[in-house]
């Protein structure tokens, strides 16, 4: 039936869109240079990704522990409820982020050039 075929095409086009985005994101990725820590949308700190540091980010009652090691960025502990940020894998490419939504914390890897930040 025509409608079933249209349904299938619709679903297929969404999947193709997803795959397309995936390919685009993976092909255009580049190793990062800096690590930006933003709270509530404002950049609070910027570090070099080649640094070695362990820092506890405290924002009132919110706490997340940031670790920069071997050119990779990770959050090792946090006192949020879902711990999504803690379970996240280490990030290292430009545009990659670790987000702690309840703490409004965003850790971003950048190449230092704000105009070129990958969407």
């Amino acid at each position, binding site marked *: 039936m025509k409608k079933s075929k249209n349904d299938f095409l619709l679903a297929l086009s969404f*999947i193709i*869109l997803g795959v397309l985005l995936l390919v685009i994101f993976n092909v255009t990725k580049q190793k990062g240079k800096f690590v930006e820590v933003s709270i509530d949308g404002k950049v609070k700190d910027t570090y070099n990704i080649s640094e070695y540091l362990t820092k506890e980010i405290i924002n009132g009652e919110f706490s997340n522990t940031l670790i920069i090691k071997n050119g990779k960025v990770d959050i090792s502990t946090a006192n949020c409820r879902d711990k999504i940020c803690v379970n996240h894998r280490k990030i290292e490419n430009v545009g990659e982020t670790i987000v702690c939504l309840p703490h409004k914390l965003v850790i971003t890897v950048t190449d230092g050039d704000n105009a070129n930040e990958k969407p």
Partner: protein
Amino acid sequence: MKNLKKITFLSILTAVAIVLSYVEMLIPPIMPSIPGIKLGLSNIIAILLLYKFSYKDAIIVSVLRVCSVALLFGSVLTFAYSLTGALLSLTVMFMLRKTNLFSSLGVSIAGGVTHNLGQIMVAILITNTLQIGYYAIVLIITGTLSGAFIGILGSLLIKYSAKFKI
């Protein structure tokens, strides 16, 4: 349908939608690394409303559902995400339905995807970054799958609801 009967029926559907949202929360997270992966079970009610009632009725029930769920189980954040997802997906589903090119399954798939995309848009606004948009990739795929699942259930509901005098 008499006005009173309709109001009562819509109220019952609203209650069911609220319970479905709650049940959804009880299911253990499939992918903890990505927040917001939800089956969207309440969309079954939304689809039923779109096909058996009107767009306006669907909006009213959905808004009531979002407000109630946010007040009962969630936070302001939950409210913002749910409302955007619900309104966006309802509007898209209504428009697709009007074209008459798709069955309720296709409409529901589109609904699932736009629901998730709506939520990602809110997340982008709240975290003030574009990078979180990377999650959109997975959310499109899960939106398609959950939309399909909801669509199958929804179409069954629509089919069997014909037996009831609404």
